[in-house]
């Protein structure tokens, strides 16, 4: 059975002409579905809001205070552990460097120069090896694979940004 336009008439709540009323009544006499739709619509329109039990606001105030206390406690312990960890790290580093501070300036330079030289040499060697490897890899990977990789990276980046913005978005009413 075709329920249009009777569904629209029932749901819109707009006033109907005499002819439309007549057609609607005739349809309703024959159609259980539209009768149920009309009854549901009437029941929904007649609905009244449910109220919370008395004392909702004091209960909210108590909950808010509890949450604020919990938040303060969390912040305190967070800052406390951060300070503790930072202090521990600084002390550990300072202990390591204490022997150097006992030496005179010349002794300090003599102790540090070989260390710095080895650090720079290692960085240089790693850089050269990396350049050679990239040259080899670039030689046997075709151009379209690079394009595909760049495209996929861009796609994943975009998906990541979209998902983060969707999750982070707080609904704003109209």
């Amino acid at each position, binding site marked *: 059975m075709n329920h249009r336009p009777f569904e629209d008439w029932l749901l819109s709540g707009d006033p109907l002409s005499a002819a439309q009323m007549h057609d609607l009544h005739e349809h309703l006499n024959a159609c*259980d579905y539209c009768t149920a739709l009309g*009854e549901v619509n009437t029941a929904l329109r*007649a609905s009244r809001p449910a*109220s919370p039990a008395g004392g909702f606001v004091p209960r909210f105030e108590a909950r808010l205070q509890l949450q604020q206390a919990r938040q303060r406690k969390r912040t305190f312990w967070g800052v406390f552990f951060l300070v503790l960890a930072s202090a521990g790290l600084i002390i550990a580093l300072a202990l390591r460097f204490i022997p150097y501070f006992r030496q005179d300036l010349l002794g300090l330079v003599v102790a540090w120069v070989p260390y710095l030289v080895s650090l720079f040499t290692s960085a240089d060697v790693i850089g050269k090896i990396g350049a050679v490897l990239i040259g080899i890899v670039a030689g046997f990977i075709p151009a379209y694979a690079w394009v595909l990789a760049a495209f996929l990276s861009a796609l994943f980046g975009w998906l990541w940004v979209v998902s983060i913005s969707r999750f982070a978005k707080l*609904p*704003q009413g109209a």
Partner: protein
Amino acid sequence: MSEETAWIIQARGGSDEAFTRLVEQYQTPVYNLCYRMLGEPESAEDAAQESFLRAYQYLDRYDLERSFVTWLLSIAAHYCIDRLRRRHFISVPMDDDEAPFELPDLAAPNPEAETVRREAQERIHLLLAGLDPTDRAAVVLRYWHDFSEAEIAASLSLTISAVKSRLFRARRALAGAWQEEDASLTTQQAQRSGSARLERRSHESPAF
């Protein structure tokens, strides 16, 4: 500047008292939405309180140019939808003792009509539980809070056409369930009257 905006600005400045006034003002709409969504007074109370806490927490993000109640109900609706999705199914109490506090309508001219209305309300309340959470939120915002389709769309982060189709689908589902319930009630009544007739006949002795 309206009184409400002044409270919001004061609450943003750290005044809990100003925010409490907002809670006082909007406790019924927020609670009603949560109750219609979750179906249980205890869960509704908890969800309403949680929604207000979230609103308090994110008050700085609220755009003063927009409607506060729409924003608030949007938070409550999203919270209830998430909760229902986590729960997977909803159990709606059949016991009237657990129904929320509702004052009797002393102005009702016809007590019989009021009883019928209440019964219809209870049926609707039970039928709502069968809807998808987002569809349910759309129906509740439309009928209990008089939201336009655009407002529902903004509240539920949907497009207007998605809201229209969700409302249409939800009303159809409700009408179908209502119709099925009517049919089963009619069958039960017929069975009851049939068994009563049989019982009467079995008690009638052929000797008399």
